[in-house]
């Protein structure tokens, strides 16, 4: 049985459709991220799960039990808000004790649970401080401690890292992940940061305009996006528009609109004549010495080169006019590739992911 299942959740605000028809299942201990651009309905979905918002249609089941009619207080979910929503007039210990006090837990047990919880987030010794006397990362830990102290059935996180600087954000991400693993917490996480989603999740639900476009592991949504939207939204991408001209030796031969010929690994359900998008991630191409003899060989002029430390990014104008993005590991001074130079590369048929364009799938 899943810990959380959403069945056909729909919600609109006036004319705005916030959620169209959302189905989602979370197994025990699973970390699922809702990823999507602004306005795609992420927060609305989380608020419906938490009980702050009421869906127009559909059901929310927690461990098989329909909680649709339950008030937020009765749902037993730990939630961390974007701005933490710590209570400024309470000390750290009082903040963390709050959910237990509301549950009429005994004093001795409260003391013990609060101690355990603060130790878990490595904040032992900060009991008597007020939230305003803590750094951003520490405040976040208090919010986490408060969300886990009552042993919730579900952990809900709404963009909890938004307010932290990059370094701290990465550190907190890993800490949250470790904590979630250790306590085996079923977690629903909301973010619009695709990098964060890839790092943290067991599975990612990519949302677009109130619908889940794709649900899959980080690897799946990155390497095998189900739609152009997902391909575009997650990571950087090169997308060719084209048509399947033939299938030979298990390879699709794709004729692009710009006049290139691509070879990609064949996929079920694609036959001659289908219009498709072919996706190549920028780190996939392999450098070659030039020459266009093999399959998927390309050459072009570097129109922009950006050095980013661990990697370098080139915008290449392919012969034939198309722009292509390449990202390779950073090189030393001696091996600089600069703007105006030539770049030759080849793409393995396995590194081309073919997406059927809607309307010609079947």
């Amino acid at each position: 049985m899943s810990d959380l299942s959403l069945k056909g959740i729909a919600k609109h605000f006036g004319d705005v459709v916030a959620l169209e028809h959302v189905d989602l299942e979370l197994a025990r201990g699973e970390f699922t991220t809702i990823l999507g651009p602004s306005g795609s309905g992420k927060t609305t979905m989380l608020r419906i799960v938490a009980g702050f918002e009421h869906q127009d249609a559909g059901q929310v089941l927690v461990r098989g039990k329909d909680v649709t009619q339950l008030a937020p207080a009765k749902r037993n979910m730990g939630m961390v808000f974007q701005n933490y929503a710590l209570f400024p007039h309470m000390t750290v210990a009082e903040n963390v004790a709050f959910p237990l006090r509301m549950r009429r837990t005994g004093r001795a047990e409260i003391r013990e649970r609060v101690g355990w919880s603060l130790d878990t987030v490595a904040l032992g010794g900060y009991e008597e401080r007020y939230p305003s006397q803590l750094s951003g990362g520490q405040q976040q830990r208090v919010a986490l401690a408060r969300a886990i102290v009552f042993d919730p059935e579900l952990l809900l996180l709404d963009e909890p890292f938004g307010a932290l600087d990059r370094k701290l954000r990465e550190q907190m991400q890993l800490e949250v992940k470790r904590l979630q693993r250790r306590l085996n917490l079923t977690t629903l996480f909301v973010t619009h940061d695709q990098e964060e989603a890839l790092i943290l999740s067991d599975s990612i639900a990519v949302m677009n305009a109130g619908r889940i476009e794709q649900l899959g592991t980080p690897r799946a949504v990155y390497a095998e996006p189900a739609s152009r939207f997902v391909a575009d939204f997650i990571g950087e991408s090169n997308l060719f528009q084209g048509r399947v001209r033939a299938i030979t030796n298990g390879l699709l031969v794709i004729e692009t609109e710009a006049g290139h010929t691509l070879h990609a690994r064949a996929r079920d359900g694609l036959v001659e004549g289908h219009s498709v998008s072919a996706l190549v991630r920028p780190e996939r191409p392999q450098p070659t010495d030039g020459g266009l003899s093999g399959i998927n060989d390309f050459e072009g002029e570097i129109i922009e080169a950006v050095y980013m430390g661990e990697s370098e990014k080139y915008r290449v104008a392919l012969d034939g006019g198309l722009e292509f993005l390449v990202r390779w590991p950073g090189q030393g001074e001696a091996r600089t590739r600069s703007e105006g130079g030539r770049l030759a590369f080849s793409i393995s048929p396995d590194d081309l992911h073919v997406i059927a364009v809607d309307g010609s799938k079947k």
Partner: protein
Amino acid sequence: MVNRRRRSGFRILLAIYCGFVFFFLVAPLFVVFPISFSAARYLTFPPPGFSWQWYLSYINDPAWIQATITSIKVALGTTVLATLLGTMVAFSLVRGSYPGRSWVDRLVAAPIIVPNIIIAVALYGVFARFQLVGAWYGVMLGHTVYAIPFVVLVVGAGLRTFDQNQELAAMGLGASRLEAVWHVTLPQIRPAIISAAFLAFITSFDELIIALFTSGTNATLPKKMFENIIFEIDPTIAAVSVLQILLVGIVVTLAARFGVGMNPIR
């Protein structure tokens, strides 16, 4: 250079202006204080000599003491009632959504806008029918009507700056709506509520017109002072004024101390 001179000219004018305002605000004190210690039997200024006689006359006159007690009772009752009701109205205005809310929002300031004397006459009409004229709690009800708008304004302002996510968070963590308000919202807007309570107290404590119409023989302090001026005119009212000023001064100081800046977080 020109700019600078013009600015300093402006500052001198501003200083003179502020000086005048300040003078007119405090000038009465410089008259009232000396007169209250006057050795003369009439209101004369400057006083011919020093004496405590008017303070003694206040303390030894049961009518003055009775008026003082009435005033304090009325003001305390008004404080409690107006703060309670006003806070509830403020919540309904800031949080609620019900038909007619915008009208309530506009009408709530009416008791401040409508001339006091109109309220006083209207209350007299109603109280006369229910035999409330002359009862201290009648005056208290009248003052409550008058003080509620102040409470609504102050508490409403506090409530508007309060982050409502806090309440949601509390409910998500297991609090009922009432518990969330009690444990999370109220403690955080406490400075506003305390300021509002002090304001209600002061509003009632030196209100004259409503008391004039509704307190009957059971006079409040301002009413007694008014009658004293009309019938006797002796420096006792100067002494009473000084005592009243001291009391209000203490209340204002307490309000400043506890109303704002009490929260260790701010």
